[in-house]
């Protein structure tokens, strides 16, 4: 956990007071909607189809039990009893009243959470690996660097009005769980031959209307140079980025137009001028931030304690354990993923009661820490293995132990036309219907790892381009249609999916997905060839032939 200081608290209280005043002036008519809209957006308040929505940042996906409980409180008192965890390590409340927003925000600010930088053309919530500081794969805690970036970018005057929004993601593990290649800037922390920490820097990734995989512009940036280098990138972007056309304003367009090499040269030139200036990170500054992260006092334990071994005799527990429990860097501990994808439920939603239960369980078994991942699931990063059986029993009783993590019904879906004012088509009910087709989890397990991503429009909030199966809602003559892509992936081998064929209707989607999966089951080289690898080996053609012949 990160301990916020007094400055952060005072600042948040001030921001809430300011917003309360703005809402008051809006309601009295002193502010027009045109004047008020940018102000509410700066605080994470959107207007959706049938209500206001409040988006709350969860910096680098880390929450403590008190914060999650407060979110449950907000869901219960100011919303309809649930919240929606998103692909950007945010939570959204879908039914908040403008009149009550200042109260809700004040309640959240008391525990240090807010909606600042969740909207607008600023540097957004920096995202990272939800297994940070728990996975044995990483070379450092990536949140240290995300926090350094957060402090630098929060209200940086020059960066509040960028040409467009700007998203940064950091990973410190070999396996990328933060999708860094589809962010404006992706940072991969690693060690060089001399053992020094540094970043590989990628720029120009992103989804939306014009998707790109980020390009590497530097293999190794010494970690202490992070801020001056990011500043150089921002300056080049601010200087050359297009403000004339909203669809061309993202850094990915600039990088694409001038090429990664030219872009890199411009950044290096800019950087040479500022690298030894005020942004150079001293050891003391880094240590100070490092010290503010509080880690659990891990006890000396061994893997596979008797409590766990005994419980594994129960097939239901064993199935969950195989699916949702992952290796921790400390012997005797595990990382636990909590699926927010019970079959047939809206992906990523959690009720207030479930949030309270998870907060209690985190306190009891998980050092009071909860993480949010971009797959719209939650995670308890530090659980003693001896506690796994009791944790499972409690999760199971609350409907939070569906053993489908990374399976075909662990679907990522945006709110789509059921909530979003920009949507062409629904996404959530499509996800629900597909999930139900694979309700037999033995079948889903037989299929193995398969990521389905659904977006209700080209903005790609559901990351459809990088789904193993990607589903994009489009509109044709006032009807919902869906384009299907295969072979996308968001990890260290990120690539965009390939279009399977003509768009199909709402009713056809679940059957088509089933046909794609059945085709894979027939064509795969064996149970160990994942869906994504079969598509890579054979291309989309064999799928296309089979699927469209059937429809």
């Amino acid at each position, binding site marked *: 956990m990160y301990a916020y200081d007094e400055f952060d608290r005072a600042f948040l209280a001030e921001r809430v007071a300011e917003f309360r005043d703005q809402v008051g002036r809006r309601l009295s*008519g002193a502010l027009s909607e045109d004047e008020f809209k940018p102000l509410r957006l700066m605080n994470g308040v959107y207007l959706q189809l049938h*209500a*206001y929505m409040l988006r709350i940042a969860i910096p680098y996906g880390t929450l403590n039990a008190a914060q999650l409980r407060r979110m449950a409180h907000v869901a219960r008192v100011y919303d309809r009893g649930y919240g929606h965890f998103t692909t950007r390590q945010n939570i959204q409340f879908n039914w908040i009243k403008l009149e009550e927003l200042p109260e809700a925000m004040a309640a959240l600010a008391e525990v240090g959470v807010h909606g600042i930088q969740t909207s607008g053309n600023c540097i957004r919530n920096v995202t990272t690996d939800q297994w940070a500081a728990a996975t044995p794969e990483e070379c450092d805690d990536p949140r240290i660097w995300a926090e350094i970036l957060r402090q630098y970018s929060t209200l940086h005057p020059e960066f509040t009005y960028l040409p467009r929004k700007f998203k940064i993601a950091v990973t410190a593990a070999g396996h990328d769980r933060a999708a860094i290649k589809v962010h404006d800037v992706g940072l991969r922390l690693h060690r060089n031959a001399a053992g020094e920490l540094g970043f590989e820097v990628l720029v120009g990734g992103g989804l939306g209307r014009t998707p790109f995989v980020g390009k590497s512009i530097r293999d190794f940036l010494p970690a202490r140079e992070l801020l001056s280098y990011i500043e150089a990138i921002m300056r080049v972007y601010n200087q050359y980025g297009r403000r004339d056309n909203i669809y061309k304003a993202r850094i990915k367009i600039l990088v694409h137009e001038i090429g990664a090499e030219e872009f890199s040269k411009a950044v290096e030139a800019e950087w040479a001028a500022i690298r030894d200036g005020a942004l150079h990170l001293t050891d003391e500054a880094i240590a100070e931030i490092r010290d503010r992260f509080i880690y659990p006092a891990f006890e000396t334990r061994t893997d596979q304690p008797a409590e766990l071994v005994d419980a594994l005799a129960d097939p239901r527990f064993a199935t969950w354990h195989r699916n949702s429990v992952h290796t921790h860097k400390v012997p005797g501990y595990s990382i636990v993923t909590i699926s927010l994808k019970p079959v047939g439920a809206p992906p990523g939603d959690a009720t207030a009661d479930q949030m309270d239960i998870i907060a209690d369980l985190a306190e009891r078994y998980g050092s009071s820490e909860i993480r949010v991942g971009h797959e719209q699931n939650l995670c308890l990063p530090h659980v003693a293995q001896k506690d796994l059986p009791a944790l499972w029993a409690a999760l199971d009783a609350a409907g939070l132990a569906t053993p489908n993590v990374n399976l075909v019904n662990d679907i990522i879906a945006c709110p789509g036309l059921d909530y979003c004012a920009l949507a062409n088509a629904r996404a959530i009910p499509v996800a629900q219907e597909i999930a139900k087709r694979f309700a037999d989890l033995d079948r889903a397990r037989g299929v193995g790892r398969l990521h389905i991503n659904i977006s209700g429009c080209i903005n790609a909030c559901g990351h459809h381009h990088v789904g193993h199966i990607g589903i994009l809602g489009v509109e044709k003559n006032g009807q919902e249609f869906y384009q299907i892509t295969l072979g996308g992936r968001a990890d260290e081998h990120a690539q965009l999916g390939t279009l399977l064929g003509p768009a199909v209707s709402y009713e056809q989607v679940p059957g088509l997905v089933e046909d794609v999966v059945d085709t894979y089951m027939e064509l795969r080289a064996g149970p160990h060839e994942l869906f994504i690898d079969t598509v890579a080996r054979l291309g989309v053609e064999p799928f296309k032939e089979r699927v469209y012949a059937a429809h």
Partner: protein
Amino acid sequence: MAAPQQQKLKVNGPVAVTANRLTDGAVVWRTKAGGWSVELADAAVVTTADDALALLAEAGQRDLDAVGPYVAPVIVDADGALAPGNLRERIRVAGPTFELPH
């Protein structure tokens, strides 16, 4: 996808003007009396682009009750009862198409 407010106006059938209530975002419909109602049944219905634009202009004069007004299709059945004219408007009126978590 652009929201209807950003799209070119096409009128080929009955339409009404709709918006979100300022205080809570609830869906409201412009009434004949020049106010707003949460009931679609109270909506003023017009059938030409000129009338729709006039209704919209009038609705936009004051932004204190409702925000983001735009022209939306409606269906008028044989008895004159009103229904939303497309899926988007059906969802605005009836809420999400699946059971909300509870």
